[in-house]
Structure formats: C-alpha cells, structure tokens
C-alpha cells in the first residue's frame, strides 16, 4: 500500500520537502504517517491535517492511494 504525503508553507520549508510517497503493509493512522515523515516530534497543534483534501484528525486511518497533507494554520483571505 502506498500513499502520497504533501507539505505546505512553513512546514514544507522546515522539512525541506513538498511531496513524497510512503509504502506500508498494515493499516496506519495519520499520526503514524507523521512519525515516518515528520520532524521526530509528536504532531504539534499547529500542524493541520488533510486526508484526500478534507480536514482530518491524527487518528484517521489512511488507505492505499490516499493523499495526506500536513500544513500550518491557514492565513488566506484579505487583510493580514
């Protein structure tokens, strides 16, 4: 089983990675994905998670072909 992992914004810069693939054989949670791709620390409250482009929690189980994204708090819209 394989998933795509994406990083955005300051997290992308900090981890030095935009996108990577990871393989696994057992069902796996987003938190476990983070242990494979993250910075060695537990997921911070300042890291948001999306699975298949929808917001998700760290306990979400990911499946073959899923896209998991990690990113910092969003800052879109007008003004600062």
């Amino acid at each position, binding site marked *: 089983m394989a998933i795509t992992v994406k990083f955005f914004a300051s997290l992308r810069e900090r981890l030095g990675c935009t996108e990577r693939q990871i393989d696994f054989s057992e069902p796996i949670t987003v938190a476990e994905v983070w242990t494979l791709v993250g910075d060695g620390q537990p997921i911070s409250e300042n890291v948001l998670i999306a699975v298949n482009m929808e917001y998700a929690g760290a306990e979400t189980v990911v499946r073959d072909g899923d896209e998991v994204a990690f990113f910092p708090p969003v800052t879109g819209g007008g*003004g600062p």
Partner: protein
Amino acid sequence: MTVHIINAPFDPWQEVANYQQAYLKRAGRFGATACFIGTMRDFNEGENVQAMELEHYPGMTEKYLGKLTEEARRQWPILDSLIIHRYGHLQPNEPIVLVVVWSAHRAAAFKACYYLVEELKANAPFWKKETLATGTRWVESNTSS
C-alpha cells in the same frame, strides 16, 4: 455558484460586473447583492510589507470552497455566489479575495457573504509569506477580524 482560484491580478469590480452581466437571465429576481473584497495592505504588525507570496493547496482549495458554497446555499435562500481568490506573487493594494452573494432579500445576502468570508479565512488552505525590508516571514495566524 462559481469559484475561481487565479494567479494573476484581477479587478474585482470588473469581474463582478462581468459575472452579473452573464447572470442577467436572473435579472429582476435579486434585490440584494452583498460583496466583500480583501486587499493586500502595505503594513502588518508594524512593518512595511513590500510584496507577498500566497501559497495554496491546489485541489483542496477548490474542494473546500465548493463545499462552503453549498453549505451557504443550504442555510440561506441565495440565488448565486462568486468567489475569486488570488495566489502567487502579490503587490500591496492588489485584491486578494472577492466574495459576492446575490439574493432576493438583504439579510440572506449579508449573512451568507459574511459566513463565506469568515469560513474562507478560517479554513481555506492558503498561506501568506511577506517580504519585508529585512527579509521574508510567514504570516503565522489570521487576525480574528
């Protein structure tokens, strides 16, 4: 119910005029149009901002804003809506986001427009990186208002 994510400057007043022109088949039905434009300022947290890079999550942005529009439509009797959001390289005074809602009555138009703007700012996957005189910095959080 239209969402555009674009990477070039746009004139919000021209866009909404064009959209309404195309939309005139509904002329006479809408009595209220509520509209919000967020514009890049040249200052933030006491510093002059010279330019901005606006990153987003292609795919998720469109998906999120599409669902948001559907939710607004469920909550209020709106006739149509238009969202345009920039990404890429921005200069001060350029519009970042345009949100327009058309409805028969003003309460629905105002409330739906406010809802779309607040939810967009809170959850749409965009990130701002500012260029200051001293270097660049990621904006860490949105102001609450």
